[in-house]
């Protein structure tokens, strides 16, 4: 009986965490609506917010899998930049069909992901270190590949990829939604997903129970890398240029979205919808404060405070379960 109530309390504890974040989210939205009654809640602005949450949200989906598996990936920002630069190179008007820059971006992302995965799985290098290395090196490659300056002059179809609409919904939001659904499906409905949780929760137990931990890790980092490549291509399309310095700090926003969403940095736990809330919350705050004319410096302070707060909730709810 004690065991049963222990499990119940555990589930309740997790649900309280996600509920708490949802409540915080609603409170923040209400607050911003009150401060800018005409501007904030307008449909065009809400569409704006979702558009702005999408690229970070896509990165966060990959980051979520990595973190749940017990790792971290600092290289996604640099990977996005390299993918964006190379995609821009191949999307000048009239040169290559549209699928070429998109596929190249995905391949680049996957390649960096594989390097990270092999480093973690076979080199047994701590994820923080290997991805710090790839983050730095890939940034250098982007600078070389672009000649140091943004690659511009992209075709209209390429620009449309991130700037267009589908039945009035921004395409960026459509991609975000699709990737969220794919990631959610992987985590909740597949054996692969279950094993990702296991590896993050207790790697030794995972190994002992016959899970090919090495292969799994490579796949997880490759997934995150591919999403980073995709996001980088979208960023280049959105800014109509492939900039070697783009995506700087994007890995931190992706991590923030995952953490704010209640996913534990220790790995092995967390719900996919937390990441969606986290990504939306970051975009909502940025948008609301921009409309109010609050300087980006204060915005950084607020973002930092929210991250710390979210982690505190995570730690406290865990200790209550023990």
């Amino acid at each position: 009986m004690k065991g049963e109530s222990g499990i119940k309390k555990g589930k309740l504890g997790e649900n309280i965490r996600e509920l708490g974040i949802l409540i915080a989210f609603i409170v923040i939205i209400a607050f911003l609506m009150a401060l800018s009654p005409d501007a904030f809640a307008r449909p065009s602005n809400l569409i704006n917010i979702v558009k702005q949450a999408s690229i970070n949200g896509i990165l966060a989906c990959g980051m979520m899998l990595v973190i749940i598996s017990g790792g971290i990936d600092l290289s996604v920002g640099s990977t996005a930049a390299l993918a964006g630069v190379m995609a821009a190179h191949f999307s000048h008007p009239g040169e290559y069909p549209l699928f070429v820059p998109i596929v190249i971006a995905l391949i680049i992302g996957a390649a960096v992901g594989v390097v990270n995965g092999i480093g973690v799985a076979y080199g047994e290098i701590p994820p923080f270190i290997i991805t710090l290395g790839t983050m730095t090196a890939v940034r250098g490659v982007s600078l070389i590949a672009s000649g140091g300056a943004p690659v511009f002059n992209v075709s209209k179809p390429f620009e449309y990829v991130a700037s267009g609409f589908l039945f009035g919904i921004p395409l960026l939001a459509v991609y975000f939604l699709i990737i969220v659904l794919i990631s959610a499906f992987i985590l909740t409905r597949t054996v692969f997903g279950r094993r990702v949780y296991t590896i993050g929760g207790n790697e030794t137990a995972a190994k002992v129970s016959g899970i090919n931990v090495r292969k799994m890790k490579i796949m997880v980092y490759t997934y995150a890398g591919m999403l980073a490549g995709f996001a980088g291509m979208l960023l280049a399309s959105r800014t109509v240029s492939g900039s070697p310095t783009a995506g700087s700090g994007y890995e931190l926003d992706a991590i923030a979205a995952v953490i704010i969403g209640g996913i534990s940095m220790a790995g092995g736990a967390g719900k996919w919808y937390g990441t969606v809330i986290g990504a939306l919350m970051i975009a909502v705050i940025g948008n609301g404060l921009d409309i109010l004319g609050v300087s980006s410096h204060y915005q950084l302070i607020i973002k930092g405070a929210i991250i710390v707060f979210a982690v505190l909730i995570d730690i406290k709810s865990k200790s209550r379960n023990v």
Partner: protein
Amino acid sequence: MKTRKVLSIVLVLLMMTAILAACGGGAKEEPAAQEPKEFAFFISHMTNAFTIELSDAVKAKAAELGVNVTVNDGGKDAAKQISQIETTVNQGIDGIIIEPVSVDAIIPAVKAATEAGIPVVIVNQQISDPSAASAYVGVANKDGGALEMTKAVEDLGGKGNVAILLGPMGSDAQIGRSEGYKAVIDANPGVTVVFESTANWTTDEALKLVENWLQSGKEINAIVAQNDGMALGALKAVEDAKLQDKIKVYGLDATPDALAAVKEGRLAATVSQSTTTQGLEAMNTVYKLAMGETVEPELLVDFTLITSENVDEFL
């Protein structure tokens, strides 16, 4: 035991010799170099068209003069740039050009260089103690800002709402250009600044910021950005919102993509800071100083306003 002792003594002696040689070696390069041959250029970063153009100009002039110049990339890090300068000064060089990461932090390194008899030319962003260096070649950012804002105000007919995109707060360019903006705006009471925020020179930050400003409900008639990278981000947001006929966008730097946008009639204007001229003149000046000539302490290069009328000259 005994071999170990002997080995350690030998090692210590070797180390001491190496250290003494290095100390002595610092002085071995210098004076009596008949023709100045070796120069070094310290640039704050090499990640946009402006810095690349500047560096290419310096190298081109060096080639023309028949001397060597090594370009050192400071990676936007003041400490790194200081180390680079100190290392070069230590090894001996005929002259150095610095485009500073920070207008304050590098002053000690500059002083160390001039005290070692090495001429120092500062380019593009003036350090806060100009007398520490031998000469300055560059622009007065205030003039560039004023030129840009004057055009914007003119196009508005002296009345309207302006949104401003700034560079990194506290950078020399941001401070100077803002000063220029302020002077023009103060002289035109019909113009109101409705938004003013930093987008750190980057296109994607500017894009997001302007997207959100356009949602605020406040009317915006012109967006003035302190560089082209941000201007192009703002332009994309304006075009996405289909407001390009209502809002004019202005930039500064005359990068290739901005010039193309001016030519296409999308960007209202940009401003050239004659980057190439700055680079050529900086190299020329440091060469003259190394040859023992005297030069003007300050050589200011003009900004040029570029609109659809004169853009073809720059393409």
